[in-house]
């Protein structure tokens, strides 16, 4: 019978690796102990030996492939008398290696979940093997607990009896555990690899760098796992623009005639957000499975677009900082971000974020929440619009703000009240002094 040769784990923590070199080719006969391939991780390289004998029917993963998930099929081994091709049944749409890997792994999961005794290794939705003691597996099976949703408290994160005994059927991994949950609900078919849909040579490939991978992973988790809802409000910027103009004109100039500061509309929005958060602690909060964390300071993140991605550095304790301080700090952090010099303590945490695409003339958009925060505002352009005031049409500078909120933490009314306060601060900046 044809069997799949799976990507081996060189260490208990290995999740993926590089298939550095094939030492056999299709049609070669192998026996137990034959060295099949060289596998590399960022830490080690190792020869991979055959366990069974047979003929290499098909090599599924090409030499030099990186990021091959552990337990993904990398080749097909044929038994005696089997012919290459005949026994290998790879659905056409799955011919691409990555799609094939994911499908195989989730199929294996499903099969194992059905088994009455889950004694075989279980895999997480992203293909990583779940380490659990035999007793934990047995108890989990009898209580209907999904092991891949638990975090283990045993040695090297192994799931042990007490973890399972404390879990409720269907319990999910606590979000507070730090790392973003690996994937969305299992059972959703993976998207086919885009390369399948375009003729080769019709595109240029840019391999993912670590920031692209982080953005993909974090935002997929955030958008999949957080129940987002959206609130939109228009803010009249006439007063703010006037105040800003006066303040900027009053900025002391140095010898080179460069003013000491130049406040942007966004600096006002940052400050207004901080002040509004202090008035609405329910919004300045984070979700965990067991509790809501209400933050004591207004740590406001600001999304900074980079040539190679984006990052959200944080103005900590923004409620204690003046407009000039906020303005200068944002500039410094944005500069560091562009040089890739931000430290984790400058972008991790925070209670709220501001994303502003106004400078591009965007009128209105929605953002994805930046966990562990619960809310983010998407700020559009301040532009002259006709408004109706006392029954007359007038012209005012108006900006549209849309807040994305985590409904687990912030209910609609709570979010609306916060936006009301934010709008008031923005429309009358002097009221922030009250």
């Amino acid at each position, binding site marked *: 019978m044809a069997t799949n040769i799976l990507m081996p784990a060189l260490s208990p923590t290995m999740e993926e690796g590089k298939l550095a070199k094939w030492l056999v080719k299709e049609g070669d006969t192998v026996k137990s102990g034959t060295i099949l391939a060289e596998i590399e991780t960022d830490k080690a390289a190792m020869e991979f030996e055959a366990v069974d004998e047979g003929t290499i029917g098909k090599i599924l993963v090409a030499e030099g492939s990186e990021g091959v998930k552990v337990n993904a099929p990398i080749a097909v081994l044929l038994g005696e008398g089997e012919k290459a091709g005949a026994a290998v049944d790879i659905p056409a749409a799955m011919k691409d290696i990555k799609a094939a890997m994911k499908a195989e792994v989730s199929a294996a999961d499903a099969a194992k979940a059905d088994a009455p005794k889950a*004694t075989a290794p279980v895999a997480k939705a992203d293909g990583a093997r779940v380490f659990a*003691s*035999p*007793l934990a597996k*047995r108890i989990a099976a009898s209580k209907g607990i999904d092991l891949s949703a638990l975090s283990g408290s*045993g*040695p090297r*994160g192994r799931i*042990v009896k007490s973890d399972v005994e404390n879990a409720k059927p269907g319990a999910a991994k606590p979000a507070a555990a730090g790392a973003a949950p690996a994937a969305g609900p299992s059972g959703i078919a993976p998207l086919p690899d885009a390369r399948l849909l375009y003729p080769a040579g019709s595109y240029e490939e840019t391999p993912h760098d670590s920031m692209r991978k982080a953005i993909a992973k974090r935002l997929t988790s955030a958008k999949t796992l957080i129940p987002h809802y959206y609130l939109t409000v228009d803010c009249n910027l006439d007063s703010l623009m006037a105040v800003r103009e006066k303040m900027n004109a009053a900025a002391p100039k140095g010898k080179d005639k460069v003013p000491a500061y130049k406040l942007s509309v966004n600096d006002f929005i940052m400050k207004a957000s901080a002040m509004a958060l202090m008035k609405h602690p329910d919004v300045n909060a984070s979700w965990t499975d067991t509790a809501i964390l209400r933050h004591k300071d207004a740590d406001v993140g600001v999304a900074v677009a980079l040539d190679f991605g984006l990052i959200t550095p944080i103005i900590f304790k923004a409620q204690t900082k003046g407009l000039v301080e906020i303005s200068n700090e944002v500039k410094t952090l944005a500069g560091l971000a562009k040089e890739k010099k931000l430290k984790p303590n400058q972008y991790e945490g925070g209670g709220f974020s501001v994303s502003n695409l106004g400078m591009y003339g965007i009128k209105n958009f929605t953002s994805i929440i930046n966990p562990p925060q619960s809310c983010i505002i998407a700020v559009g352009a301040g532009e002259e619009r006709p408004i109706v005031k006392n029954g007359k049409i007038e012209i005012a500078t108006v900006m549209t703000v849309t807040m994305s909120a985590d409904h687990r933490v912030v209910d609609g009314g709570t979010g609306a009240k916060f936006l009301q306060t934010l709008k008031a601060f923005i429309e009358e900046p002097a009221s922030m002094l009250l």
Partner: protein
Amino acid sequence: MSDTSFDVIVVGGGPGGYVCAIRCAQLGLKTAVVERDRMGGICLNWGCIPTKALLRSSEIWHMLHRLKEFGISADNFKFDITKIVERSRAVSQQLSNGVAGLMKKHKITVIAGEAKLAGKGKLSVTKDGKAADYTAKNIVLATGARARTLPGLEPDGLLVWTYREAMVPPSMPKSLLVVGSGAIGIEFASFYRTLGAEVTVVEVLDRVMPVEDEEISALAAKAFTKQGMKLKLGTTVTALKKGADNVTCTLKDKAGKTEEVTVDRVILAMGIVGNVENIGLEAAGIKVEKTHIVAGKYGETGVDGVWAIGDLVGGPWLAHKAMHEGVIVAEKIAGAKGVHPLNTANVPGCTYCWPQVASVGMTEAKAKESGRKIKVGKFPFIGNGKAIALGEPEGLIKTVFDETTGELLGAHMIGAEVTELIQGYVVAKSGELTDAELSHTIFPHPTLSEMMHEAVLAADKAALHI
């Protein structure tokens, strides 16, 4: 002037203390140990190790009487109690030197003297009336325990002994009364009985080795009685009247009936009390209950930077438990990740009497009390080839499983070499293997360990050789 400032100072150089110090040193902490006597503590100098040396001698003596059985003849063999004791002392000496060597190897400073907490991060060590001050970011208390005494039952070192005198008898007593049938009492009873002394064991509870499984306890009692030991169960000693070279003991049984027994020597083995005195616990605000420090699951005492391990804290009062706690505390101090508290259900217990007794986890009765549905497997030594070949056909291995989950709740053994076997079940229990994995494990033939396999199979009525 030697160094007086350390990352960690461990108070007490017993198995908990010296192991803690080694682990601290391995983790890069500047470490010292304070010891008032010899490195290795009671275990190495006056407990586990020297008694094993004594029992080895008595085991050989016992085997000499069985030579014919094995087709060998010899006569006129004798023992010399002085030489047996000398060997036991030499074994202790060698190992204590070994521990001192380990301290040197790990660059651990050994401070001789008695230590006392002297304020936050401070320790005062007194040696020959002179006090010296030391500072340490962390202090680990590992001062151990000593024999419990009761009013009217105080040792005098001559006629009424504790383990300490019993370990170094100047001559062979003809008759002995052992008070207490826990591990310490029963090991001495076994040693002296095998060498020919008339031994009476008094136990206040209604069975010997009361912490063990009832069935094992009963088999042990049967074996001891067959060897000629007198067991007085449910009995207390109410008075000791010392003569010139003997002691008359008044025993009272449950029904209130008293009797007098006159013996050469009395050994007191009524448990232990923690060494909590004169180490500055009260002033430091460390809580003591029933002579033991109340410590958290990682050895925290509630006072910042002060930790406690071993016999000084909760039971079981065993060297390997103290050693493990020493490692846990060292790793906690060093900020290591993934440190797990000790699980007492996985601490094995071994008694080196003859026949040996070993166990881990719940007794059958305890498992039943816990409300679980259980299944029990048993396999006798008589069904094992290696046991027959060794001439050790008496004994039993018993397993207790949770019937629903297959969890190994406990394992209990009596017979030859069981103290070396129990670790197999401890590994299985710690790794949370169930009956299924144990059933599918291949045990080597011919070994005594096959009985462990059979005892697992027997829980499903699938034992092969019975």
